[in-house]
């Protein structure tokens, strides 16, 4: 018996009982669909995390001042901590090996005004290195450069969001905006950047698009702080050559900063790559759970197939007897019924793939959960459905093959 005959017979059987076949497939359909949908949600979360940490820089060590109340600030000052300063940056650059760049930043929250519009924003004083270390992209104009920095020029670069709020359709480059009592010239606008939606260590979640960047040198000259005790800068971003030495380097950085701050823990260190690895580990548990759920639903689907196939074999005892009488071997009968089970599971698997893909697309369109379908997840889900067909079709097919021709041919 050629195998194509089996497929024809199986397809015929399936289309003869469309509704029953559909019900039989349901378990497989949902199993496959849920595998694909869940894997795509997991993958989406993974990509989002990677993007987030890439924004922070996977080669970076971030030293950030702790958020402190005035009392706490006073306390660390009385314990001789000078707070985070450009001096820290210099010392780190001198002592720590393998550091490629260091960016310092100081921040205040201030009202930013243009014409009759005004908006609350973070004004961040930065060194020119900032741009290269933190994956920023300029949309027009230029970022704070060495000339701006060296000459303490009164210039600023706007985030995409704030540029739109202040200027709408106007061209911002060359315009003057007012921050506190200072007039600054807009020299650049940044590309829109993903929202930073989660607080990571000392880094609070916020919308990076509403920031205004100015040269740190000018910032320190011209902008007054609310509290005179406040540190010179709020953050140092240290880029290292080799991400494999992040841990050692950060230990060394910690040691230096702690000493300079006279053992005051008024700062925190964030290593984006380590956090990424940690999240990856957590996701593995989640993935394992997903796998278990998927396996269970596919097994349930398989049992559904087995159930119907057992009934089908009973129902078609006579047919089996006839086929045996005219020369079908056990293996022919076996092949016929396994093929039927596999055809059902493949059909169910295909429908499941379509459903799963649409589900994950719907999820990403209608919720803020991002999904990403990887080809391998579709292939795995589909392959499993075929395996389920073979495994759960085997027993009913074996029963069919083992029917005695003498008895089955007279079965009414």
């Amino acid at each position, binding site marked *: 018996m050629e195998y194509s005959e089996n497929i024809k017979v199986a397809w015929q059987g399936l289309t003869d009982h469309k509704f029953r076949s559909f019900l039989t497939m349901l378990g497989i359909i949902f199993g496959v669909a849920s595998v694909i949908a869940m894997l795509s949600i997991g993958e989406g979360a993974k990509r989002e995390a990677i993007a987030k940490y890439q924004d922070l820089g996977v080669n970076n060590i971030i030293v950030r001042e702790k958020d402190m109340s005035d009392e706490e600030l006073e306390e660390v000052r009385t314990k001789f901590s000078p707070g985070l300063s450009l001096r820290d940056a210099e010392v780190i650059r001198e002592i720590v090996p393998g550091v490629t760049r260091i960016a310092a930043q100081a921040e205040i929250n201030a009202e930013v005004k243009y014409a009759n519009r005004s908006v609350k924003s973070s004004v961040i004083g930065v060194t020119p290195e900032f741009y290269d270390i933190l994956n920023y992209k300029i949309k027009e104009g230029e970022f704070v450069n060495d000339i701006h920095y060296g000459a303490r020029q009164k210039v600023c670069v706007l985030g995409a969001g704030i540029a739109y709020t202040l200027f709408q359709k106007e061209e911002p480059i060359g315009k003057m905006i007012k921050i506190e009592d200072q007039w600054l010239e807009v020299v650049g606008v940044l590309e829109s950047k993903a929202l930073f939606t989660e607080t990571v260590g000392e880094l609070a979640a916020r919308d990076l698009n509403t920031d205004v960047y100015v040269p740190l040198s000018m910032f320190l000259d011209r902008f007054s702080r609310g509290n005179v005790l406040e540190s010179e800068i709020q953050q140092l971003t240290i880029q290292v050559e080799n991400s494999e030495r992040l841990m050692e380097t950060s230990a060394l950085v910690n040691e230096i900063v702690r000493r300079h701050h006279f053992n005051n823990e008024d700062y925190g260190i964030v290593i984006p790559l380590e956090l990424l690895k940690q999240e990856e580990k957590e996701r593995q548990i989640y993935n394992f759970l997903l796998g278990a759920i998927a396996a269970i639903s596919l097994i349930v689907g398989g049992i559904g197939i087995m159930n119907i196939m057992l009934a089908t074999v009973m129902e078609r005892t006579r047919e089996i007897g*006839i086929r045996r009488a005219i*020369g079908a071997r056990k293996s022919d009968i076996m092949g016929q019924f396994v093929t039927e089970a596999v055809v059902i599971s493949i059909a169910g698997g295909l429908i499941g793939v379509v459903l799963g893909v649409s589900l994950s697309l719907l999820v990403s369109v209608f919720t803020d959960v991002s999904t990403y379908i990887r080809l391998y997840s579709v292939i795995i889900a589909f392959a499993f459905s075929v395996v389920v067909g073979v495994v759960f079709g085997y027993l009913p097919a074996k029963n069919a093959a083992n029917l005695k021709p*003498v008895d089955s041919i007279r079965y009414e």
Partner: protein
Amino acid sequence: MNDNLLIEITHITKRYEMGDNVVMALQDVSLGIREGEYLSIMGPSGSGKSTFMNILGCLDTPSTGEYKFRGVDVSKLDDDDLSAMRNKEIGFVFQNFNLLPKLNAVQNVELPLAYAGVPAAERHERAVRALERVKLAERMHHKPSELSGGQRQRVAIARALVTNPGILLADEPTGALDSKTGVEIMRLFDELHQEGNTIILITHEQEIANYAIRNVYIKDGSIHYDRLNTNRTIVK
């Protein structure tokens, strides 16, 4: 025994065990059948005639004794070889036709050839020829449900003939037909016999047995008589 026998059955028994009861369905049955014979096996129900037919048709094997088909001891064959035997040497014709309802006439006739591994084109050609032989070629695309009882039995006969089997084994072939149609089927068997086919009729009706040339009568699991039919019904 004679060497040119097609079927050579010697001292076969068939016993069934049902709990503590042992039923001897066949006891010490011996029979030889030559190629081209037209023979009936008759007996009342419960006589063991069905058991005998199952063994003749390689659907079942005897408990003891020997069944040789063209010199091959069938009782020692395994399941696959028995299947091959049924496929090549036995052409079954059943009382209730036993066609597959989802397949049309020609597909039903092709089926034994499919199991024999004959390529599709040749299969179709041979099936059409077999249907022509039973004068049903024009109905070959009809499903069994679209055919009359007599036509269905013709399809079944075509299916039995299509592999050129050693024997045609017909189990009450007219049992489900009206008498006029029954006579037509018996005429077809007569023609097939004249063309050289070996035919074994299994029946409980004397009337049907009378069409055969040789009559075997089974009673209580053994052969009661085995004689030439002197009173043969000739189909006009």
